[in-house]
Structures are given as C-alpha cells and as structure tokens.
C-alpha cells in the first residue's frame, strides 16, 4: 500500500484534513518507545487505498521535543516499524504561508515527493489575502491545491492531485544554499568514519550540522565523540563562512522563502484588526479574562462531575443487574459465581465506569483546543505555574484530576515539553478526586461532625481537597530545582485565530481516546481487580463457615435458652438470622483470606498511624480503587458489602469499635487523630490501580511504579505524623 505522510505546522487544520480524508478508517496508538500519539488512517481514492500517517504538528525539523523527533525519524525512514512515506502531503495555512512553508523547504531536502494543500482558503479571502496559486506552483515546483478542510472544500481535487502525484513524484525545488553551507556538509562528512560516510545523506548532514543532532550517527554505530567531531567540523566551517551555526538555516531559508514566495502573496493591509483580537479583548482581558476563564473552567469541571454521574450510575446499575443474573446462573458453583460476579463483571465495570468522565472531558478539551481557547488558557495561567518549572498548559489536566485522575493524566497530552508533562502526570493523582469523597464523608460524618459540629465538618471537607496539592507542590519545586534540574524552558505559544470546531473532529477524538483507554489501561485495571478478588476469596475452607455457624448457633442458643440443634433449625427458617449469619461468615472469610492475613501481618507498620488490622485490611483492599474501603469495612464489620458512606449502621459500628488487647484495650479505635490519619492517608496515597495503569500507558511502567511507591510512602509517613502529633495535642 502507498504511504502518505500528512505534515504541517500546529493549528493548520491538519487533524480536520486527516479526518476528512480518512473518516472512520483510522487507528490511534503510540509510536514504539515514545509517548507520541500515532494516528494512521486509510484514504480511498478512485479504486485504490492509501495509508495516511498523521504526523505530529511541528514548526521545524530541528528536533527539540519527542514530537519533532518522531517527525524527523519517520520522514528519514529511521523508525522501526514505520516505513518511509512515498509522498508528503504538506498542509499550509493560507493566512501565514511564508512561515508555514519553512517546514516544507526543510522537508524538501529529504527527497520525498510532495503535494502542498493550502488550507483556510476561505479565511484568507476574508482577510483580503490573495495567493497566486499558479505562481506558487511554479515557485515550489509541486502541485498546490487550495482547500478549506473545515468546509470540506477542495478535498476531491486534492485527492485527484495526490493520486496523480503518486505517479509523477514531483519534488519541491530545494533552497539554494551558499557555498559555505555545502563546504560545511562536506567537512562533516569527511570527519565521519568511512563506514558511515556513504549512509549519511545530505539531508542527514543538514540536520546534524544545523541542529547538532547526533541521533542518526549514533544509531549507525558512530561513537558520540566521532559524531561530535563531525558536527563540530561542519559548524566550524559555517562559522568560517561568516554564518552563525545556531541560526544559519533559519536565516538563510527565510531569506529564500521571502524571495520566492512573497511575489505570490498579496495582502491588503488596510484591514488590520482581526476578529480574534476583538474576542481576545474580552477573553484575555485583565479582569474579564480571568472571570471568563474561571467561569469556563467551572462549567467544564461541573459537567465532567455531574453529567458523568447519571452515566456512571447507569453503568453501576447495569453491572449490578449482570452480577445478579450471572450469579443466579452459577449459584451451584460458589467459586465460579464469585469469580464471575466479584471478579470478572466487577473488573469490566471498573474499566467502563471511567468512560463517561473521559469522554466528557475530551469533549471539552477538543472544544477548547479546536476553538483556539486552550492557548489563551495557558497564557492566562502560566504565571501560576512557572515558579515550579511548569507552564500554564498544566492547568486543565490538573483541574480535571479533581474529578478523576484518569482523564486528567490523559489530558496532559496537550503538554509538549516531556519533562513538564511527566511532572504534571505525577502531580495529577495528588488532586483530590471524586473517589476520595466517600471516604471523607464517612469519616467526617461519623466522627468530626458529632464532636465539632457542622461548620468544622464543612471546613474539614473543604481543607481535605487541598491537602494533596499543598503537600505535592513543594516536591515539584525541589524536584525541578535539585533533582531533574530542568533548564528553564522557553515558553512560547502560538495563539491561533478562533475557529468554530467541527462536530466530526470532536466525536472522533472522543471515540479514539475512549477506545485507547479501554484497550490499554482497561486490561491492566481488569487484571488488578481479578488479583485482588483472588486474594480476598482464597483460601476458602468450609471449616471457617462451619465454625462460625457453630459459634453463632451456640450464642443464639444460650441467648434464647434453647438447645443448640433447635437454634440451628431456627437459623434455617428465620431469614433475618440467616442473613446475620451470612454476614458473619463473609467477615470471617475476609479475615481468613490471603488479604486478611496480609493485613494482619502488615498491621504493625500501620500501628504507628493508629490503624488496627481491620482498617489495615480495608486500606490494602482499596489499592485497586480507594472507594472500595467503604464496602470492605462493611464486610469486615459484618454489615455486608452494600453499605455506603451515608450508612448510619457503618458509622455506629465504627464508633463502637474498641481495641481488644494491648495497652489500649477497651479504648475506642476511631479517635480524632486516627480518623485524621486515615483521611490524610487517603488524600495522599496512590490507591488507584487504574491511575497507575494509565500513568504507565502514557509514560512507562517506571513512572507508574514510582508514582505508586512515592505516594504510598508519603501517605504512610504523613499518616504517622498526623496521628502522632494529633495524639500529643
């Protein structure tokens, strides 16, 4: 199949054109080894099919970021599993043609046939920009097609031209370089070991000498010293020729472009003020801009939070129905029944429950990006983040993490700088997500409110939402300054003209993100759920149930003053008693399970935070998903798994829990210091298998592991500090 690479600057409507050409025939994934999104689709033209690779938007082939690296490597054919394209379909913005064509001229050196699509043709006309297409064709030496991707205008013609170009293979006329550049390339080539000299094309030498890019040489077995020597030789020669090696390519190319292209463009400058600027007079205004921003974020955040609610309830209810149904089919085989309902269906539910939030958040993110507002949001918020090495682009991912860290982590894809992105990803799970809320509500409702009243309870709930942020920010600052030592990044951002987003682009993005989440993170989340199920289910010996039944019957017998056999018969007939017995058996099974045993074994570690073994089991069981603590505590306290955070029974039972042995025997377990320690632990701990899975998917498993270990250790230390200090007061 022929392969066409779609290339262009950011904000040129590249995704819209890609969607236009491929429709639903697209596949989204990652490039091998990097976290750059790889979009490939199929275009049908005439009776043929071509594969279209949507390369990340870039301004230049000088690779500073992983995105740009991918572009260069893909075009050079230097990437595993990605073949060199047969044609570059270059998309340029008609309203900014000269700057856009800079990248086209750089690409021309790679020797791949090219077709240029000039997009935003309609906006250019509105802005009184006239482009002489015939002249441009002549100047560039390749076919030029004016299009308007957003209105699907010119697409048919573009396809025809592409089809013809696949046969005729037109090449963009390369820029003429001064002699000193040619000499520099020769000098660099001469300094290379003989074995590589033949491999290094002029394009490769260009990139190496201009960008100090060693990657090609190193990949072909040249030692870093030799690579540096070759690059230095080339740059020295540039310097001798009176050129500044740092910007020679930029200056020379821009000069050429101006000479060749400027005659084809006619701009009527009488109309200076653009529509975008008048919108910006409000949206980036000193006062109104901030209000508008806060208002918009409120709407986004509220919608993710509340629109997702009914869908999540629906998924939950559907899960419950399937569990009941499947459970009734398998009632004969208790182990299979439990595996199917508490393991498999629960695991699938645990994956799909995140979908509503992911889809709604990406609905808004695509809207914010495609309208051009996202760049303004970064502009407004940058100052708040620059002190700790981040930029305004971190704001939206972090805010959405307050609803749920999963879509938040996925939203960091809008951050280009890889280090800033990783820090934002690691920071995201510290934001107080909605799954922490039930824990806070339970603890505050059961212990803070009865002791201190509603006002303090409300204030505590509010404060708990900032614990994670306040604890994590100093770490970000220190990590930035002393560990990662990120050199201050230049933050430069193009604020594109405002556009009306395309419905199809929004829907396709939601669909692709959702699919990717279910496929990648979903499998891990599912696996974790099964593992925890197994740890809670096994070993399951009949003896446990028998001994609990015997004890229960004996207790009933002595209470009612009857024979034990009679009490046993009563247990069979009285539904209420039978339920109570079932709950006790379930509780005993949890205590006997591997997880229960682990809880008892590690309890001493948590004793410094004032946790007993039951809280410890609850904490460990909630590592796949923190909200599980409520139902686990329900089971452990023999109330069944159906309790929720508002449940009065659960609150009463917890309030009545007393230490059975040791120096604190007889004293209540849940004191204010213990309750505070539990809440702080949940605020800081990485108790979310899904987040770890998504972090690993978006970065590498190392960062997933780091996040888990770091947050859990931090939570443990903080819980101890809170308990110990609280106990002194």
């Amino acid at each position: 199949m022929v392969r066409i690479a779609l290339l262009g600057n950011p904000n040129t409507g590249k995704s819209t054109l890609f969607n236009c050409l491929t429709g639903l025939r697209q596949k989204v994934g990652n490039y091998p080894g990097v976290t750059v999104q790889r979009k490939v689709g199929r275009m049908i033209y005439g009776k043929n099919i071509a594969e279209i690779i949507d390369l990340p938007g870039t301004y230049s082939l000088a690779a500073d970021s992983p995105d740009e690296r991918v572009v260069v490597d893909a075009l050079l054919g230097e990437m595993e599993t990605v073949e060199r394209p047969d044609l570059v379909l270059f998309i340029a913005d008609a309203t900014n043609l000269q700057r856009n064509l800079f990248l086209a001229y750089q690409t021309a050196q790679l020797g791949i046939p090219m077709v240029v699509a000039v997009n935003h043709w309609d906006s250019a006309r509105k802005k009184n920009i006239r482009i002489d297409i015939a002249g441009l064709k002549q100047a560039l030496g390749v076919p030029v097609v004016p299009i308007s991707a957003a209105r699907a205008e010119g697409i048919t013609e573009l396809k025809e031209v592409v089809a013809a170009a696949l046969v005729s293979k037109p090449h963009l006329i390369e820029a003429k370089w001064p002699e000193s550049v040619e000499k520099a390339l020769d000098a660099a080539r001469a300094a290379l070991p003989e074995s590589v000299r033949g491999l290094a094309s002029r394009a490769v030498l260009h990139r190496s000498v201009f960008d100090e890019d060693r990657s090609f040489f190193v990949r072909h077995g040249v030692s870093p010293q030799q690579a540096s020597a070759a690059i230095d030789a080339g740059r020295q020669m540039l310097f001798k020729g009176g050129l500044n090696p740092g910007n020679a390519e930029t200056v020379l190319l821009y000069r050429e472009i101006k000479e060749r292209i400027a005659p084809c463009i006619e701009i009527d400058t009488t109309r200076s003020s653009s529509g975008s600027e008048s919108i910006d007079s409000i949206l980036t205004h000193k006062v109104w801009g901030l209000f508008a921003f806060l208002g918009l974020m409120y709407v986004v955040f509220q919608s993710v939070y509340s629109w997702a609610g009914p869908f999540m309830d629906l998924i939950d209810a559907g899960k419950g129905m399937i569990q009941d149904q499947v459970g009734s089919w398998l009632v004969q085989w208790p182990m299979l029944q439990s595996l199917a309902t508490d393991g498999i269906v629960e695991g699938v539910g645990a994956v799909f429950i995140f979908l509503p939030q992911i889809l709604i958040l990406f609905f808004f993110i695509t809207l914010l990006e495609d309208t051009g507002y996202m760049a303004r949001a970064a502009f407004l918020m940058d100052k708040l983040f620059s002190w700790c090495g981040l930029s305004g682009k971190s704001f939206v991912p972090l805010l959405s993490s307050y609803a749920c860290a999963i879509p938040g982590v996925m939203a960091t894809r809008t951050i280009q700088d890889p280090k800033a992105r990783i820090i934002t990803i690691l920071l995201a799970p510290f934001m107080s997500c909605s799954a922490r809320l039930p824990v806070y509500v339970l603890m505050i409702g059961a212990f803070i409110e009865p002791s201190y009243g509603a006002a303090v309870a409300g204030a505590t709930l509010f404060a708990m939402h900032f614990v994670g942020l306040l604890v994590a920010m100093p770490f970000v600052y220190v990590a930035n300054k002393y560990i990662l030592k990120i050199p201050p990044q230049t933050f430069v951002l193009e604020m594109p003209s405002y556009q009306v987003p395309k419905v199809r682009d929004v829907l396709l993005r939601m669909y692709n993100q959702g699919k990717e989440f279910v496929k990648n993170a979903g499998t891990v989340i599912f696996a974790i759920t099964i593992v925890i199920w197994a740890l809670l289910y096994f070993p399951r010996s009949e003896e446990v149930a028998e001994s609990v039944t015997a004890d229960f019957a004996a207790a009933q017998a002595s209470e009612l003053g009857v024979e034990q056999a009679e009490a046993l018969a009563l247990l069979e007939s009285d539904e209420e008693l039978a339920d109570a017995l079932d709950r006790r058996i379930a509780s005993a099974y949890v205590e006997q399970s591997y997880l229960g045993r682990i809880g008892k074994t590690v309890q001493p570690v948590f004793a410094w935070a004032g946790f007993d073994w039951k809280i410890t089991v609850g904490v460990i069981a909630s590592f796949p998903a923190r909200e599980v603590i409520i139902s686990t505590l329900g089971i452990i306290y023999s109330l069944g798994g159906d309790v929720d955070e508002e449940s009065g029974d659960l609150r009463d039972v917890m309030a009545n829990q007393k230490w059975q042995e040791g120096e604190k025997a007889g004293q209540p377990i849940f004191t204010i210091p213990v309750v505070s320690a539990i809440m702080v632990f949940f605020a800081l701990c990485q108790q979310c298998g899904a987040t770890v899975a998504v972090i690993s998917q978006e970065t590498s498993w190392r960062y997933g592991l780091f996040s888990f270990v770091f947050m859990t250790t931090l939570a443990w230390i903080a819980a101890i500090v809170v308990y110990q200090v609280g106990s002194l007061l």
Partner: protein
Amino acid sequence: MKTLNDLTQGQSARIACYMPKFSAARRLMELGLMPGTTVRFVKAAPLGDPIALEVDGRHLSLRREDAAKITVQAL
C-alpha cells in the same frame, strides 16, 4: 538597549538581535521572530507574565525573561 520586554501595550518595534547564548533563539525565529521583523506588543497576561506579541498577523506568547533577551529598535 531596549528589549521586547520594555515595550508598552500597543507599541510596535523592529527586532534587532538576539542576546548571545540564548538557546531558544532559533525556535523563536522559526516562529517568525526574525531580526528585522516588526512586532507589536499586544498585551501582558492578567498576572503580568507572559506577554502577547503580534508578528505577521499572528499572536505569539512568550515569557518576559525570554522577551528580555531580544533587543528591538522602537519605531
């Protein structure tokens, strides 16, 4: 010497040169901030930093510390 950072709202200027050893110079030039180009200071962000500039009808945003490394001639 005046820099981009010294401009006031609405003021235009021509880019003169970049301070030596400013590693991002190339990236900024690629975005259109070439020496000799006319830029207009559109506005500063509500919190004072970064700033928005207009170059060739495009709006770019950069931080003040970077803007202070680009010298300009007032028009």
